Every structure is written in structure tokens, then in C-alpha cells.
């Protein structure tokens, strides 16, 4: 494993499987009377959040605490950032406080990568702009493997599974990380989206592209719905929400066209009634609540593998 987790592309197949297998072990912790391990005692994890987030921040915090690390939460609101402090100066402050890992969420694509050059500890990208969100992809892969390959499917990849990622790919860091990671793990990924919501360079991604959702449904093992990110939309990408919902939203009727074993995923937060109907989100096929629980487990695995052993030698700094 590399020292930082900036992009899902940083992970080789064996790295990714090591994380999933470690998560599989750590998942047992949820059933135990004491849901805590002493492994990261004395290590400090800083959650540096420049963008709003509920589940990712709480998930990282729970993961670090279950491994006995000290957690410092930093949100841009109400901090010196509001007074105009730059990312670099904030990073140097954290560095001086002895952070062993910095979990960063930032509105600018590439922020995590920049930060990795300024701090000595590990940098974990918890979402940078429209670029990547690798731990989300890991928890999605973990959820897919548990549901479709069985609990305890250690060492197994996602070979042969067909995953359809639907909706606002253009603004989605989740989609990019998932395409990279799921294809590393052997899944066949198809993006289904209106042409206006696909990035220009999508042709170079390791996936297929379709403008139709309906034709993809019968052959999908997994359908991953993306949130329509209206806060990032600076232009008109589709005529109306209603039209988008009618062509790309997953309603009960569309869900019925999926094979019997197929699952429905959503990274949250959901726009019920836009990309996913409430009945679908609450159905047995939906893994949305499971994804949250698996998020803590997967992030524990990542924190353990990055911080649990020897400190990485200084020569690797900035990698």
C-alpha cells in the first residue's frame, strides 16, 4: 500500500483485496460487547472538512475511535479558514500538532493531492470536488461483495459482476472512484447517464457508456444511483427534474426489470423522488443503510493498514 489514499487508482488489486478482507474481519466487531480495539492508541487522526458532510465525517470519526486513535474534528465553518487562512497554513498547523493522518474533504479537486506534499502523516481523501472519493468506492465494493459473493468471501474479487452507475457522473467523485476500483476488482462497469452529465474524457475510463437506463437494467447485478448534485450545477444539464426522473430515475416499475438477485445502491444523501423512488430506497434490494454500516468498517480497515504498522520511511513522503 502507498502512504496516502488519494485516488482509487492508487490501489492495486491486491491492495484493494487486503482492505476488503481486513474489513471483513473487522465487521465482526459490531457483534461484540466491546466494539473497540487498542491498535491505534496514541495516534492522532484529524478530520479536516471544508465541505458539509454528515455520514463521511461521522464514519471516519467512529472508525478512528473504534481503533482507539485520538480524533480532532476541524470544519471550515467557525475556524480560521473563515478569516482567510490558506489550506497550506492550516496544513502546517496540523503538522505542528503531530497529526498522524489527515482525512480531508474539500470543494476543490486535487486538494488532497496538494495536502499530501505538505504534511508528514498519511492523507486520506474523503472527497475532493468532482474528482475522487476512494473510501466510498471501497465501502461500495465491500457491500457488493458481501451481498453477492456472501459474507466471508475472503480473497474474492468482483469478477464477472455487472455494475451500472446511473445519473450525474459529471459532478460525481463517487462515480469516478467506483469506476476505477470496481474495474480493478474485475467488475464490468457501465455508466448510464444523459450525455450532458458525462465528463468529456469518459472514453478513457475503464467502463462502457450508455445513454439509456432501461436497456441496462435486465443485465445488471448492481445498480448504483447517483445524487443529482444541484449545488454543483452551474448550467442547465437537463430540461426539468421531472423529465430527468422519468428517464433516469429508479422507480418501482424499473426495479422490477432487474434480475432477482440484483441490488440497488446509493451513496447518500438521497433526493427521494428524483433519482430514486422512496419505495425503491426502502425495499429489500436497497443496501443504503448497510452501506453506512460498512463505511465504518471499511474506513477502520484503511486506517489500520495506513497507520497500524511502521511509519512509512521519509523517502516516500509526498508520493
Amino acid at each position, binding site marked *: *500500500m502507498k502512504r496516502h489514499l488519494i485516488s482509487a487508482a492508487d490501489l492495486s488489486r491486491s491492495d484493494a483485496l487486503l482492505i476488503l*478482507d481486513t474489513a471483513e*474481519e473487522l465487521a465482526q466487531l459490531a457483534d461484540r460487547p*466491546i466494539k473497540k480495539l*487498542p*491498535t491505534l492508541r496514541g495516534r492522532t487522526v484529524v478530520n479536516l472538512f471544508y465541505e458539509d458532510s454528515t455520514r463521511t465525517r461521522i464514519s471516519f470519526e467512529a472508525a478512528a475511535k473504534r481503533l482507539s486513535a485520538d480524533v480532532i474534528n476541524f470544519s471550515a465553518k467557525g475556524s480560521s479558514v473563515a478569516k482567510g487562512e490558506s489550506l497550506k497554513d492550516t496544513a502546517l498547523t496540523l503538522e505542528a500538532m503531530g497529526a498522524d493522518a489527515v482525512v480531508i474533504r474539500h470543494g476543490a479537486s486535487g486538494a488532497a493531492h496538494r495536502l499530501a506534499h505538505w504534511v508528514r502523516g498519511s492523507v486520506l481523501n474523503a472527497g475532493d470536488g468532482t474528482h475522487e472519493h476512494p473510501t466510498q468506492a471501497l465501502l461500495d465494493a465491500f457491500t457488493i461483495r458481501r451481498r453477492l459473493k456472501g459474507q466471508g468471501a475472503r480473497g474474492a474479487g468482483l469478477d464477472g459482476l455487472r455494475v451500472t452507475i446511473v445519473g450525474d457522473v459529471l459532478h460525481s467523485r463517487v462515480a469516478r472512484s467506483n469506476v476505477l476500483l470496481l474495474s480493478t476488482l474485475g467488475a464490468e462497469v457501465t455508466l448510464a447517464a444523459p450525455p450532458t452529465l458525462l465528463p468529456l474524457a469518459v472514453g478513457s475510463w475503464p467502463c462502457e457508456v450508455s445513454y439509456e437506463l432501461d436497456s441496462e437494467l435486465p443485465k445488471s447485478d448492481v445498480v448504483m444511483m447517483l445524487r443529482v448534485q444541484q449545488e454543483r450545477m452551474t448550467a442547465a444539464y437537463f430540461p426539468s427534474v421531472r423529465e430527468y426522473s422519468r428517464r433516469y430515475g429508479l422507480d418501482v416499475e424499473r426495479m422490477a426489470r432487474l434480475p432477482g438477485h440484483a441490488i440497488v445502491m446509493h451513496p447518500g444523501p438521497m433526493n427521494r423522488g428524483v433519482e430514486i423512488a422512496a419505495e425503491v430506497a426502502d425495499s429489500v434490494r436497497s443496501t443504503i443503510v448497510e452501506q453506512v454500516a460498512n463505511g465504518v468498517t471499511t474506513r477502520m480497515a484503511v486506517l489500520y493498514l*495506513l497507520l497500524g*504498522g*511502521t511509519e512509512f520511511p521519509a523517502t516516500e513522503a509526498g508520493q
Partner: protein
Amino acid sequence: MCAASNPVAGRDGLAVLDAEEIRRALTRIAHEILERTHGGDEVILLGIPTRGVPLARRLAARVGEFEGLDVPCGSLDVTMHRDDLRLHPARALGRTDLPPGGVDGRTVVLVDDVLYSGRTVRAALDALNDLGRPRAVQLAVLVDRGHRELPIRADYVGKNLPTSQREVVHVLLTEIDGQDNVTIGDEGR
């Protein structure tokens, strides 16, 4: 072999226990467990990965055979509780599998292949502490090679093997390595 550079020459690769001796040692330990626990009631066997796990299974099978008991058997990974985590890159975790019913109120017999510094057993005691409250904890090992660094001793020992710290004890078990034997080598630490 490289006898010239070898400070404790003479027993590199020497077989310490063969398959038949391992079988006999485990049979004896199984009897001792029954004796010490008054018939094996409420006993559970937990193997420490990797090679403690098949040893625990073999002991459970033998105890079951002798007394007609169904002895619960599982595994206990200690990686997250080790004191030397920071000396190595992060390692892959072994499996922890508790038999249904857990460890509360039971006599837990920890099973490992080699007892050396005692640090693995210390980690196992800590790990066990987070899983429940056993009535008692005992330790069974196939080989006790001495050089303890902590006040820990085994209750059941297959073979006491005086060693030099430069030597390495290799335990091979059919379930993992395709054959049963214990040898001593001198690549050392």
C-alpha cells in the same frame, strides 16, 4: 549446509518431532486437559492463527473422542493487540471465530504451536478480555522453546525444547503445509 558460519553448528534442519510424535503429544495433552478440567465440561478451545487453529481442532476432536463430548473450538486472532505492530508494516489480519455461546463463564484453553517470548499469549489474553469474561484461561502449546520475556507459562506442553535464540523452530502441519513435523533451523534473529 553452511556449518562453517554457524555458531550453534550441528542441528540445522534437525527433526524435533515427527508426525507420529506430534500425534502422541496431542493425545497426551487432550488427556491432560480432561484431567485438569474434570472431564472437559465448559471447556472451549481457541487456536491462535495460523498454526494454533488446526492444533485446537485436533485437540477438540480427540477430547470429543475420549469423553464423547462436543468441545467447542474456534480461533482468536491477536494481530490488533500485538505490542510489536509498529516494528513492521501493517499485517493482514487472521480470523477470529468464536463458537456460539462465546467465552463467558467457560474455561478457555488457548492453543498455539510454539511458545517463545510469551508476547503472543499476552496479546491473546488482551484480545480475550474484549470478548467476554472466561472463568479461567489455560494455555496449550506444541513446543515450548524457552526465552520468555513475560511472566507467562503453558499449562500443557507437547515438548519442551531447549533452544538458542539464534535458532528458529519450524512447525509444519498437514492442514496448512501438507505434512506434520517440527524442525529446528539456525537462520535466527
